[in-house]
């Protein structure tokens, strides 16, 4: 089947026009998107940019001033601590949960599945505010622990849902064989299941990583001054624009872009881009 053959076989003129319109729309969208990203990058390297197509000159000094002004070393450390903890914890909780749900039929399983789906269907903002209140009540609000706990709410269900089809693909007889040869549950997990599941776990955790870096609402509601991640710090900087040089804010935006894009590029080596959006995808 030649791609597009069905479309081309009759009334070519109207179809040509229709196809062209669609490609123009896609092109226009992508052009604006890339121009938007480029304008941030260009501005962060510009000396003075006013009333012209490009800045008067180029410099890298804004990166140094942004680094110092926004205390980016602290913020980056917090960001990596939060993201690292979220990835590890949602990996452990999610894979264990997915294993149980993939291997056993038990009464109330549908209810458990619904419970796990819900946090993904409700916008973070609606449970973010009550959750922040609860966390503050237990003394975890405004701390890194609180931020990690809040970010785990959508990521644990996400890992469970992504991992279930991966686990279902593994023949249970492999596990039975390991048990026959005397492996206990822990050894079976570490030496048999985890190596077999490695591609799935890697894909799921990379998606968690990329999404946690960009997760704004939950972090925003639970973070205190010392537990801000990069995206929240960026929000405050843009919100208080006028206080600092716009180039300095854009330098921070570029640093943020680089941290997400590096991981996105790594992730894209292992996952299909559509998987970052469609959560429950048969593997």
């Amino acid at each position, binding site marked *: 089947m030649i*791609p*597009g053959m*069905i479309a081309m*076989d009759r009334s070519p003129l109207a179809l040509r026009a229709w196809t062209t319109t669609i490609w123009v729309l896609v092109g226009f*969208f*992508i052009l604006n*998107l*890339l*121009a*938007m*990203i480029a*304008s*941030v990058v260009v501005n962060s390297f510009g000396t003075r940019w006013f*009333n012209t*197509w490009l800045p008067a000159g180029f410099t890298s000094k804004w990166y140094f001033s942004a680094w110092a002004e926004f205390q980016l070393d602290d913020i980056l450390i917090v960001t990596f601590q939060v993201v690292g903890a979220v990835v590890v914890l949602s990996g*452990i*909780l999610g894979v*264990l*949960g997915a294993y*149980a*749900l993939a291997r*056993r039929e038990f009464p109330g399983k549908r209810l*458990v599945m619904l419970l*796990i789906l*819900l*946090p993904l*269907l*409700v*916008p973070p*903002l*609606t*449970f973010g*505010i*009550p*959750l922040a*209140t609860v966390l503050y009540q237990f003394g975890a609000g405004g701390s890194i622990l609180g931020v990690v*706990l*809040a970010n785990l709410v959508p990521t*644990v*269900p996400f890992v*469970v849902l992504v991992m279930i089809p991966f686990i279902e693909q593994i023949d249970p007889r492999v596990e039975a064989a390991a048990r026959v040869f005397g492996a206990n549950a822990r050894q079976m997990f570490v030496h048999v299941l985890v190596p077999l599941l490695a591609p799935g776990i890697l894909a799921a955790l990379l998606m968690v990583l990329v999404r946690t*870096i*960009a997760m*704004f609402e939950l972090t925003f*509601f639970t973070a205190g001054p010392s537990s801000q991640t990069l*995206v929240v710090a960026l*929000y405050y900087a*843009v919100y208080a624009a006028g206080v600092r040089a716009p180039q300095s804010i*854009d330098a921070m*935006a570029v640093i943020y*872009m680089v941290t*997400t*894009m590096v991981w996105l590029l790594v992730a*894209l080596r292992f996952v*299909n*881009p*559509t998987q*970052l*959006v*469609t959560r429950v995808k048969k593997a």
Partner: protein
Amino acid sequence: MLMTVERVPLRVRLAAAGVDSVTMLALPAVLFVLALFVYPFFYGLALSLEPKDNAVWYANYRAFFSDPFLFDTIGKTLRLAVPVTLLCVLLSVPIALRVRHMRHQRLLTTILVLPITLGTVLIAEGLLNYLGPQGWLNRTLITIGLIHGPLQLVHNYWGAFLGLLISIFPFTFLLTLSYVTGVDPALEQAASTLGARPWARFRHILLPLLAQGLAINFCLSFVQAFSVFPTAVLLGSPAGSTRVISIAAYTAAYEAYDYSLASTIAMVMAGIQLLIVAGILSARRLLYRGPMGGAKG
């Protein structure tokens, strides 16, 4: 006989029902969701019914629906979220139908994933530069001669609209693409062989098969558009035309420190969300009743 039944240990009986040590591995994840999602949600519901100053239990809800400053946020949010979501879904279908035949699909989808991973905050900052009075877009339009003075595209409704469109469209599109590629091309070929023109093939073959997916897609995209926050604050006019419901919730919680009212607003948000999702899904049932076979398999 009775004796033997009683002697079967609880462990064995549970295992027969599917509950054993393996099932227990789901316990941490379930407990986690119960403690950090279900409990806070009901805590928020209870909190919303305990207004400040010992007022009647429904005082917060009365305040929300009688104070135009709060109540109008629903209309403002819907005026932003509904057109953006509709536009995204409507645009995504013809584009996805073309793109499925494309050879370099992965490159295009990668470019489209960018706005999702960058997040709404970065898009807002980028658009402030790009759409601003001195930005490249206005500059280009003036150079071409399309307009004479710069268009006011930021800090108003249109700023928030465009920001939301750029953040949501990729998400909607990738979902539509995954539904569209799930339709067996043989169905369309068969219709074509029988003489169906492109529009008839779309209307009678593709649309019924895609209806369910598009309804779900609308709901998932709407969930994001409805809780718009950074975009409305940074690109819109948060005190005026884009004072959306999430801004009201944020102000109540972190500026007025009235967590009870903030929880009320969060509950109202969840309620409206639920109503709209239920409405869409039942409308879909009116449009098409029948097996989903062939669409996703």
